[in-house]
């Protein structure tokens, strides 16, 4: 799992690439928390995420939930069609009420 981030005026963009599974779930969740806590808004770019499962995405889910409770804005963009199917089956976006596109 590769990772890059940019921060501008309270807006962070996180870019992940690779497979998001149990092995990297903690790391992804911790990065989102770190950038989310020091910015008002976080965009997670999924364009190069090629695989997700319930464990990998689970960390992202619970961290996003915490950030939303703190009043932060979280958005996930550029999700591949096949990944979107998985997120849909897992009920990811629906449960959080966030924009995933």
């Amino acid at each position, binding site marked *: 799992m590769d990772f890059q981030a940019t921060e501008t005026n309270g807006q962070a963009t996180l870019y992940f690439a690779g497979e998001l599974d149990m*092995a990297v779930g903690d790391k992804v969740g911790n990065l989102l928390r770190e950038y989310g806590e020091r910015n008002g808004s976080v965009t997670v770019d999924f364009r190069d995420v090629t695989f997700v*499962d319930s464990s990998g995405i689970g960390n992202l889910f619970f961290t996003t939930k915490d950030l939303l409770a703190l009043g932060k804005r979280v958005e996930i963009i550029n999700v591949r069609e*096949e990944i979107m199917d998985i997120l849909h089956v897992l*009920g*990811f976006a629906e*449960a959080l009420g966030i924009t995933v596109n």
Partner: protein
Amino acid sequence: MMLCEECPQNPACQNCLAALRAGAGQKVIPARTVRVKLDSGEVASAELRAICRTAIGLFCHEQKLSDRVEVELASDFRIIGNAFQGIHDVPYYVLDIEKVLRREEVLGRLLMEEFLQWHHSAEKQPTDMLAELKEPEDERHRLIKEELQKLSILRQVQSIYLYVMENGDIRPIGAQRTEELMEGDMRRVALEAIKSGTSVREQLVSSDGSKMYEMYASPLPDQTCGLALIDVTEAIAEERRRQQKEWDMYKQVLGAVTQDKLVLLTDAELTVLAEDGLKLATVLIQSAEDLAFLRTECRRIMDALQVEEKRKFQYVVAVNEAATNTLKHGTGGTVTIHLASAENTVRVIVHDHGNGILLEELPRATLRQGYSSKHSLGVGFHAMLQFCDRVCLGTSPSGTRLILECMIG
């Protein structure tokens, strides 16, 4: 009126029934010893001598029964009501039934059929069984009896065989004795009990395997040992029948709710499926890092079988979820990938050696959708059911086996 003292030996006497002041009553023959608890908290022993739907008749020398009384026929069969003296000058009391507690139910009346079933069943009090023995050996007899009363299983047993071991010899107390071949085991357990100074309990199987016994050895103060051999064959068979019935019900419910996508299978059925077809790969899952290799192996095999891209992607997600669960809820497992013999089906078998899923936990573990807690098993299972054609599940204390099937035709 004193004839009631003879009841039920005098069949012509109807006094106990008349005192119930209700129709369609009947005598309890033989009278059953029951435990009576008074409102004051005092406890006494009484004989249950007559019953009808609305009242019961009790013969009690130990206490005067009045006001609210609870009568315990068995731990799961109790009658509560108001008692009063039923026949003048005789310790025969009538209890007007307020409620009957039978297993999980609370009823306002005594169901005669239920009572008779209990009365004629093997649910005898251990003391009743011992009372049938002739010439009880006083102190030893009393001590064995005391120990026996601690065992709740006695309410379901068919027979109890009592023995005493003295100077290394095993001899029965009373007329009943079980097969002689068991006496070697009895001697061994009795010696163990004497040596340790505490009671020892062990399960034994008869030499032909047809009977199961719970053996209970209790050291006595004079360096001898009392032994009780309790025939639990029927009690165990009944428990197995109950478990089978429960399992069938869960199988039907899970099948109905998932449109037969989730199939509960026995170990034997799973083994037949697991051995079918051609094994293409085996992957050991010991850490999260092994999951990537499993996905690679799955994709390689699906590519060789020319499985369509989306179908392949989703099936790999399902397999990955099953493998992940072996790490989440245990220490890992083994995944084997098979091509089924004649069904155009890829079959992945995920086997963990955890503690298994309890039957009553299965619906929650397999049918819950979405994230509810960090440790939710359901969310991954939901993905498996969505992305496979069929999921077969078998679980036992030695682990859980999941078979994920994907039609490729």
